[in-house]
């Protein structure tokens, strides 16, 4: 018997598999495909203080081994999420969920987190300071150590739940931002968000995506995720949730060896809606293949 349990700042998960925000809605669409209670947890759709339509379409473009998206944090706003989406989610998912929070000012991040702090089914807050697809917010907090520090500090002041700051790979030195978050009291770090990219339509001779740029995700970015998780693991003492192009149980183990405690699966859900269940089913066999009996023992094992 193998043990797949991991713990994120006191939040015990049956396994490290967490569908990433923006690829799993509020869970109930995915519950049409399988019983999502097999998951460790999932990170729900990025939620902001006010309702947002997001960017105009087209928002999606294909890339070699991946995709670009520029959804732009479409969500009904935190009040409606709490009043309408989470009750629907709670009917199909009976574990603690990860609340993903976006924002456009320090105050807004704090207000949204404070509201979600009051929700029982929320086990952890994942604060997205790295969305590449919104203007005047999101990524601007995740590319500046001082701003990342301020958001972290403000959020920590309004919640007792663990706070994980979700970082952008679109920076010169991600360890500097991670250290700033740790210094401000973050309980953990989530990484990586998407990498900014572009595709051009040869017929129209213009960018495919209306927003022009979009965030690159999918297996194309997996080695970047492994590298950045490895670097941040050495830079901070707090636990990491690793993500970026994960598609298989082998990828999960690789990211954990690099230093991840939890592993999020993003774009793969859009192509194979049952991929997270399949990974969870495959984990024991793959663990045995690599002589792993206790998954938590391998965290950071490659260092």
């Amino acid at each position, binding site marked *: 018997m193998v043990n797949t349990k991991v713990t994120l700042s006191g939040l015990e998960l049956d396994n490290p598999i967490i569908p990433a925000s923006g*690829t799993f*809605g509020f869970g109930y669409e995915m519950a049409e495909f399988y019983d999502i209670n097999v998951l460790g947890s999932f990170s729900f759709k990025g939620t902001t203080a006010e309702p947002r*339509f*997001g960017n105009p*379409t*087209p928002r*999606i473009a294909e890339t070699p081994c991946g995709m670009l*998206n520029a959804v732009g944090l479409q969500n009904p706003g935190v009040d409606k999420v709490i009043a309408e989406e989470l009750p629907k989610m709670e009917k199909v998912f009976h574990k603690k969920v990860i609340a993903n929070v976006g924002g456009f000012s320090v105050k807004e991040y704090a207000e949204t987190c404070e509201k979600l702090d009051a929700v029982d089914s929320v086990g952890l807050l994942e604060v997205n300071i790295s969305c590449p697809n919104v203007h005047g917010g999101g990524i601007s907090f995740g590319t500046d150590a001082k701003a990342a520090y301020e958001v972290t500090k403000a959020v920590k002041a309004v919640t007792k739940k663990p706070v994980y700051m979700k970082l952008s790979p679109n920076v010169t030195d991600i360890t500097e931002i991670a250290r700033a978050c740790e210094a401000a009291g973050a309980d953990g770090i989530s990484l990586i968000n998407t990498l900014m990219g572009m595709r051009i339509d040869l017929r129209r001779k213009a960018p495919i995506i209306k927003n022009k740029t979009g965030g690159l995700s999918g297996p194309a970015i997996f080695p970047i995720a492994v590298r950045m998780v490895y670097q941040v693991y050495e830079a901070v003492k707090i636990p990491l949730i690793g993500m970026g192009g994960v598609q298989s149980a082998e990828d999960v183990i690789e990211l954990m060896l690099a230093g991840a405690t939890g592993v999020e699966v993003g774009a793969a859900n*859009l192509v*194979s809606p049952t991929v997270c269940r399949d990974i969870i089913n495959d984990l024991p066999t793959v663990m045995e293949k690599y002589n792993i009996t206790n998954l938590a023992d391998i965290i950071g094992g490659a260092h």
Partner: protein
Amino acid sequence: MTESIFTIISNEKIAKNTYKMVLSGTAEGCAPGKFVNIKIDGLFLRRPISVCDYEDGKLTLVYKAVGKGTEAMAKMGAGTPLNVLAYLGNGYDLTKSGEAPMLIGGGVGVPPLYMCAKKLIAEGKKVTVILGFNTAEEVFYKEEFEALGARVLVATADGSVGVKGFVTNAMEEVEGYSYFYTCGPEPMLKAVYGATSTSGEFSFEERMGCGFGACVGCTCKTKYGNKRICKDGPVLVKEEIIW
């Protein structure tokens, strides 16, 4: 809505760049106006293709080879297994048709109307079908619609078949209709919107991430709120559309 393996029975060219693929696979949840999302080796995103017909355990898709995905599909032979998510989207509401519905299709917007016509005719409705193409070599399914018992009018932009002009020119020959169902390129849909006097339903196309509502990559604004083309659509009713 399930992920399963379909097997290609046949795959043949029926008009310029246009192919008809027949597959064996599940019927569960199949309805006119819904679509399937197909995994293609070597490409990351699935390819959404609307249902043309389903009968006797066989799904028919008619698609145009216009990009990497559909060009790869065009080369697939009988016996090839395909990983398919089926059936997605809301589909047309045939209960609203009235006695004499009009179906208007342009180019690759024609296929989803076939199963629609078939069901409506089986219910005893008097169906008129308007088909729009650029030129004669692109025309497909005219005889198939006629064989169902529909009145068929064709419009071609160059006048090589039927009425010279657009579907809206052919629509002028239709004296009365109770409701309409349409699918085609957006400029055509917009023209149909302006040229119709009754209520009706429009099937839209958009670049999708998932096809089942999770990524909200295909959201559009409507008078009834934000709608995901893949999940809350692809069919929208006339009254809710904002151009």
